[in-house]
């Protein structure tokens, strides 16, 4: 078998933007009945990567978030925990100490997140540092400058190198679709990431707008489906940034189910990268339980 390189992956199909918009609009008109909504909301909670990626992050903030990850709203028993916490490499050790052997995973951004403007050695060191500190998952960024200059080989090889540095940790590849400009580029970047060894593809860093629009997520889901049809290998998906309401999260679930099917409807294959989504979902769940509209005053901030 010849070694995998950018040269022998299939050509990406071009994307019909108008068609994508129409398809996506249809996902948003599905009527979701109460009981399904309740189950859907709990599923959303279990798929969240609770995230803090700020320059002002402190060990205290991370500790608090790790607590929240396991105790979303203790007033209401029976809620799941979130899937993972997502932090900077320097905070991984803090999170590991807090979470110990809890089922909540630790994801760390790496490769000089969010810009990714550094030499490969630095990115590999960054990644290894996070893995050694206890990260279960690595969220890397691609070199968008190189991608937009047409140096697809470079992007491909870089992802493959980081995948190797990850060891046992699962690799999520952030395309930063807000900087890729077109859906054709999103599809091409998705294909490069998948063939280069990504376990997950992820839309955005959350630092650039627009982030995880449904059109972008749809395009990436189609890339995952085509790869599955071709090889039988499943790839995970993580929309991140801009999904702050339960409604939008449920629309995303509808889309995943219809494009990829039930196999992807769990937190091993699908995640939401979000910081404020969890509280909105909690408020919706309490609304369905009590019949009364809720206030953020009664839910913990972090």
């Amino acid at each position, binding site marked *: 078998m010849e070694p995998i390189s950018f040269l022998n992956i299939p050509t990406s199909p071009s994307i019909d933007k108008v068609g994508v918009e129409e398809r996506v609009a249809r996902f948003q008109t599905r009527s979701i009945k109460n009981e399904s909504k309740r189950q859907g909301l709990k599923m959303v909670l279990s798929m969240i990567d609770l995230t803090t990626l700020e320059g002002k992050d402190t060990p205290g903030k991370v500790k608090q978030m790790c607590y929240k990850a396991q105790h979303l709203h203790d007033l209401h028993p029976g809620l799941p925990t979130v899937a993972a916490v997502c932090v900077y490499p320097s905070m991984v050790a803090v999170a590991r100490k807090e979470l110990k052997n809890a089922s909540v995973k630790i994801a760390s951004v790496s490769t000089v997140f969010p810009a990714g403007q550094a030499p490969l050695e630095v990115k590999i060191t960054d990644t290894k540092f996070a893995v050694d500190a206890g990260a279960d998952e690595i969220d890397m960024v691609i070199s968008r400058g190189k991608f937009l200059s047409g140096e697809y080989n470079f992007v491909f090889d870089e992802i493959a190198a980081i995948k190797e540095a990850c060891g046992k940790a699962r690799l999520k590849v952030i395309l930063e679709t807000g900087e890729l400009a077109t859906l054709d580029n999103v599809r091409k970047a998705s294909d490069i990431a998948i063939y280069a060894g990504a376990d997950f593809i992820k839309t955005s860093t959350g630092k650039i707008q627009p982030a995880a629009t449904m059109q972008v997520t749809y395009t990436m889901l189609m890339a995952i489906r085509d790869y599955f049809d071709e090889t039988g290998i499943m790839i995970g998906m993580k929309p991140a940034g801009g999904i702050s309401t339960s409604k939008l999260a449920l629309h995303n679930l509808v889309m995943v189910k219809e494009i990829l099917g039930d196999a992807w409807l769990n937190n091993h294959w699908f995640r939401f990268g979000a910081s404020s989504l969890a509280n909105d979902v909690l408020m919706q769940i309490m609304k369905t339980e009590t019949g009364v*509209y809720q206030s953020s005053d009664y839910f913990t901030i972090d």
Partner: protein
Amino acid sequence: MSRLEILKTYKIYIGGQFPRTESGRYYTPFDKKGKPLANICLSSRKDVRNAVVAARKAFGSWSERSAFNRGQILYRIAEMLEGRRAQFIDELIQQGLTKANAEKEVNLSIDRIVYYAGWCDKFNQVLSSVNPVSSAHFNFSTCEPMGVVGIISEQTSSLIGLVSMLMPAICGGNTAVVLASEKLPLCAVTFAEVLNSSDVPGGVVNILTGSTSEMAPTLASHMDVNALITSQLDDSLKKNLSVAAVDNLKRNYEFTADWSKPESQGLNYISDLQEIKTTWHPIENIGGATSSY
């Protein structure tokens, strides 16, 4: 061939926009002769929810504006209402008032807005205090707005009840979700157009039309509404609302004033929607002969 009259469809007012109700429903109130007045949105609980979200979002910046600036904006509302007197008088006559009474109601409404505009940068001085305490503290109490106020307009007037209940709320830095009079809703929506063209930021006032008994319980039980004010509500609904308001310990007031009287205004309507915050500030001494303050 006679011309077919076009009934205006009155829309609701949420977050500075004029959407139709998300439910797509409407109703048609009639005048005394049985002639339809207009098509009015029959808002649903989801509209109430959206309005509360808009009011909450607007609360931060509205309450942090300088009191003087809030006064300017309230005064601007009065100016814009003055400019559209004729339309309001027409609508009041349509809804059954005599011309003289309609003019009187509009005039009083304008005067009342000016009255509360004046209070904006004055009530805090009057209601606040420096308190004597027997310890080394500078102890003072000041007003803070409660937050989002739910207002169930008085049902027997179209304009003056709404103005009289709304103005003291926003004067004090609160934001509001108003349910208009069910049978006399015309002026409420036109008043929203006045608000929209008078520098009042979107979301500070949100006005919904529809069935009071349908919407009011949602507003009363909403955890993100901090106070509920009503006026001359029937007893059974009043009781239901009081029970629903208990969950988050909303302030709940029922006003019995006759709003059409010039004296039915005052500082108490502002202070009812303020919380008092008292601060204990460590200090050597204050007010004595050796005080340096």
